């Protein structure tokens, strides 16, 4: 049973489209995250939610909007996709300030 699962695993779309990535964790953790891994393999935090409250919001374009309906789910919606948005997006969860558990990633390709 997957601890942190994200869908879809692969996403190919045209510039200007809107897309969403969904994430669910069954670990009972209270904090969830979105990280972006670019072509140089750097993992950078985008957002973090603790019990549905946004607590980390890095310098990310307004086109990216996270939404946490409950503490087990964190979705990422991206409007007006650009070429530079192509990357692997990882969802993660933790119990407060404990170690992060990552999903398998969603590879987004914008054409």
């Amino acid at each position, binding site marked *: 049973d997957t601890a942190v699962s994200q869908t879809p695993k692969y996403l190919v779309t045209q510039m200007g489209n809107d897309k969403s990535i969904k994430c669910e964790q069954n670990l009972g953790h209270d*904090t969830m995250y979105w990280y972006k891994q670019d072509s140089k393999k750097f993992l950078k935090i985008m957002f973090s939610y603790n019990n549905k409250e946004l607590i980390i919001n890095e310098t990310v374009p307004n086109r990216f909007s996270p939404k946490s309906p409950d503490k087990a789910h964190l979705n990422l919606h991206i409007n007006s996709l650009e070429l530079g948005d192509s990357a692997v997006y990882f969802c993660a969860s933790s119990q407060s*300030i404990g170690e992060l558990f990552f999903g398998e990633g969603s590879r987004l390709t914008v054409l």
Partner: protein
Amino acid sequence: EDQVTQSPEALRLQEGESSSLNCSYTVSGLRGLFWYRQDPGKGPEFLFTLYSAGEEKEKERLKATLTKKESFLHITAPKPEDSATYLCAVRSNMEYGNKLVFGAGTILRVKS
């Protein structure tokens, strides 16, 4: 600004050839240094957390150590299945929440 630099970028070892990966960091008050392993097409997998200089942790063929400026991941008698990218990350006292700053990673290839 918190910064993590990992070296080397890539490392090729023969099976059984021990070596070390380096993680140098600059952080405003360290509140944890983390090592992760990432296999191709997968998410990072947690290995260790170190909190203070002098601390060491071990898991199978891996041993992580920490000083005030850097951390080492020692790999003893590696096997091909140890091939992966190893990521280092730090958490700062100055950052709210559980924000980790990652290095670019070291790609390890172990040949049999």
